[in-house]
């Protein structure tokens, strides 16, 4: 049985439905990310799991126990907020030990545990400092240590990295992930940053308009999005308007492209044909490759390690496409604005969605 079972969870504010009939299972020890744009209901779902903003209807079982109607204090979780919510007037040590003092633990044991936790998050020498004397990244680690102090069964992270600058964010991503793996604590993280979700999560729950769009491991979410929303929200994507001619052939602006067999879609219907910029093939095209497309390079946006190329289809100049060209490729083929090239759209990389 799943560690956390969420069934038919609905949350309404007046007439606005923030969460509509959401069901989800989370396994013990899993690291799950709730990913979505702001207002998609991901934070609402997290706060319902914590009991901070209880759902309007639906049930939540944690480790087989029905916690649906319990106030937060009677549930088993630790939480870290974007704002850190560290108590500014208490030292780092007192912050971390805040939940332990209440458990009638001997003082020496508390001190030992606090030291252990601060070692764990890499801040061994900060016991006596006040939060204001620490950097943002350090404060967030203290908040993490405080949330873990009471060894909760479930760790909830509400956009924990959003308030930090880019470099610190990258480092903390790895540290949090490593820590979670080491402790094996079931963890749910809310984020709007797809890169964060892709690098950290065992499974990603993509949400939109108060409902779950897709659940799956990062690779799957990225490679096989099941809706055009997920395809658009996670990573970059080209969307081409087309029509499904046969189950494995789409036409786009008079051009035909082979694709994988599409079962769920009716023939003759308008569809959106998608391909990721990095999947557009340029080099070593065999003579008989399918979906070959002569294009002209409209312009090149230098992004650093690669260039994002805006391409125009020569047969149909209104049809635009972006592709990622590595620096090597640009050098080797002498690509520049106005260059004429042949590219290919591999059929197994094409995704087709109903409009």
């Amino acid at each position, binding site marked *: 049985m799943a560690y956390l079972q969420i069934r038919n969870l609905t949350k309404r504010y007046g007439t606005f439905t923030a969460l509509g009939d959401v069901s989800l299972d989370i396994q013990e020890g899993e690291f799950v990310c709730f990913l979505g744009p702001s207002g998609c209901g991901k934070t609402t779902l997290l706060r319902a799991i914590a009991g901070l903003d209880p759902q*309007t209807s639906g*049930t939540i079982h944690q480790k087989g126990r029905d916690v649906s*109607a319990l106030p937060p204090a*009677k549930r088993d979780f630790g*939480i870290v907020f974007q704002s850190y*919510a560290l108590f500014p007037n*208490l030292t780092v040590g007192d912050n971390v030990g805040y939940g332990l003092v209440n458990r009638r633990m001997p003082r020496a044991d508390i001190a030992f545990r606090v030291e252990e936790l601060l070692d764990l998050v890499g801040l061994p020498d900060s016991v006596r400092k*006040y939060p204001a004397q620490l950097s943002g990244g350090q404060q967030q680690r203290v908040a993490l240590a*405080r949330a873990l102090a009471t060894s909760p069964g479930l760790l909830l992270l509400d956009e924990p990295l959003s308030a930090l600058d880019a470099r610190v964010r990258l480092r903390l991503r790895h540290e949090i992930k490593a820590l979670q793996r080491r402790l094996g604590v079931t963890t749910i993280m809310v984020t709007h940053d797809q890169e964060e979700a892709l690098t950290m999560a065992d499974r990603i729950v993509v949400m939109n308009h108060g409902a779950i769009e897709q659940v799956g491991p990062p690779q799957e979410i990225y490679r096989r999005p099941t809706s055009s929303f997920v395809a658009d929200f996670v990573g970059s994507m080209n969307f081409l308007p087309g029509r499904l001619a046969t189950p494995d052939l789409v036409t786009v602006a008079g051009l035909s492209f082979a694709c994988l067999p599409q079962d769920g879609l009716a023939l003759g219907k308008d569809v959106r044909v998608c391909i990721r910029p990095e999947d557009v093939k340029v080099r070593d095209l065999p003579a008989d490759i399918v979906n070959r497309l002569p294009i002209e390079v409209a312009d090149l946006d230098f992004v650093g390690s690669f260039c994002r190329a805006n391409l125009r289809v020569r047969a149909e100049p209104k049809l635009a496409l972006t592709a990622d060209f590595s620096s090597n490729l640009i050098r080797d083929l002498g690509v520049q604005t106005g260059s004429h090239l042949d590219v290919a759209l591999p059929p197994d990389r094409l995704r087709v969605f109903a409009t």
Partner: protein
Amino acid sequence: MTLALPARPTRVGMSRDDLVMRAGVLALAVVLLVIVGLPLWSLLAKGFEDRDGRFVGPANFITYFSTPALFDSALNSIYVAVVATAIVVPLAFTYAYALTRAVLPVRWLFQGISLIPIFAPSLLPGIALIYLFGNQGLLKELLGSAIYGFDGIVIAQVFYCIPHATLILATALATADARLYEAAEVLGTRKLRVFLTVTLPGAKYGLISAALVVFTLVITDFGIPKVIGGNYNVLATDVYKQVIGQQNFSMGAVVGMVLLVPAAVAFVVDRMVQRQQVASLTARAVPLVPKPERGRDAWFTAFCSVVAFGIVGILATAVWGSLIKYWPYNLSLTLDNYDFGKFDANGWDSYFNSLEMAVGAAVFGTALMFVGAWLNEKTRAFHLMRGVVQFLAFLPMAVPGLVLGLGYIFFFNAAGNPLNFLYGTMAILVINCVAHFYTVGHLTATTALKQIDPEFESVSASLKVPVWRTFGRVIAPICLPAILDIAIYLFVNAMTTVSSVIFLYSPDTKLASVAAVNIEEAGTTAAAAALCVVIVLTSAAVKALHVLADRFALGRLQAWRRR
């Protein structure tokens, strides 16, 4: 196929925290009902009774409005309040503008001087004006006639109201975004246009608020018209005359209700206007720091000097008058006027009574207001009861002290009231004081609490720490500056108030400000001035102590604020 059952709504159980907090909110609602709601209700009921307590419907109101002597006071009150407001607001605006937008030498001194009147009972400016322009006034010849009446009231009110208006307007003007001014400058806008299109709209809400506060202060003040009003009757003095002079409590209640109307209207308008206001200063705003500009700075320095001279002059006159043997015939100095036993049976006791009441109000009032604001702010759900508390906490702001005091007589002195034993004790004075000044303390505490991360309670709950422990270990220590502000506010107001307590003291619990009124009434102006001076010194000393403590002692307690 299964039928979709309607989802069963989740009813979340209450934790121990929730229960305790809700019980607290409920208790607070009961306390506020007893100290604010029921006394006001008694007052309203009394207005519809005759002298013997029989219900007579609107008869008293008919008498009131058909008796020109009574009704004229209402018009007088409004007239005085409008004129005083029309003078104070531009004066205070210019002063506040100078403090915030010009480079003044000794700016801190000008700021400090503008606050002086807060520490004085309102009858002090009245007494000082009598020394200068009264029947025996030194400068009486300048005016041609004695100052008693309309002119005297207005001038004294200007002195009394300046600090309140200046504080509000300086706050409004201080929160300006420098980028707006830079944009205007870059666009080559003329100064007058910048003032009219940037400065004034930015201070709009401050101006409205200041005008309403001054209007309410003037119309509800009792000390000034009592001392210098002469034959010019206003509502506040009428209430006093009906109750103390003629023992006509029903008519007193009616006049009190009439007095309640303009104060309540001003209050409601202010709340409505404030609700319109959106935060003009975003986190990204760049604070405006005035740059030196010789001509402008010189002009404003001169202006502020004149106003400051007026304020200091009035205070100095009162101090000087209190040290004079026999004004204006024997101007040699003496301390005889401070031997209060010669003028009033209570002697110095009334001063110690005032101290006792002020300390009591500061201690119990601050505790009640802060804990109350916390309960009301942090209790989950329970919206109805929290709304009741919020309403009762805001009510005192709209109720003049005299009216609340009168309500206290009717409520606590009623034969069947089990709280009757409080009547005539120090306790009822403290309670009345806390109730009268409840709103500002509640607002100060609420504002401070709103600035605290709302997730502190969530974190505590996840760590299974009871809310009251987090209150004691985190919330209260963080809010210490606000808590001290409330305590000082209560202390100073308790020391200086006349109107809210004048009906409630007993011979044993007479207060210094009341004694000053009585002594002045008996004709010994010098001793009344001396009492006022003692009150000013005490409240100013406590404030000075607060500032010093803030700077030095608290620095150590608040080490965590330093980076």
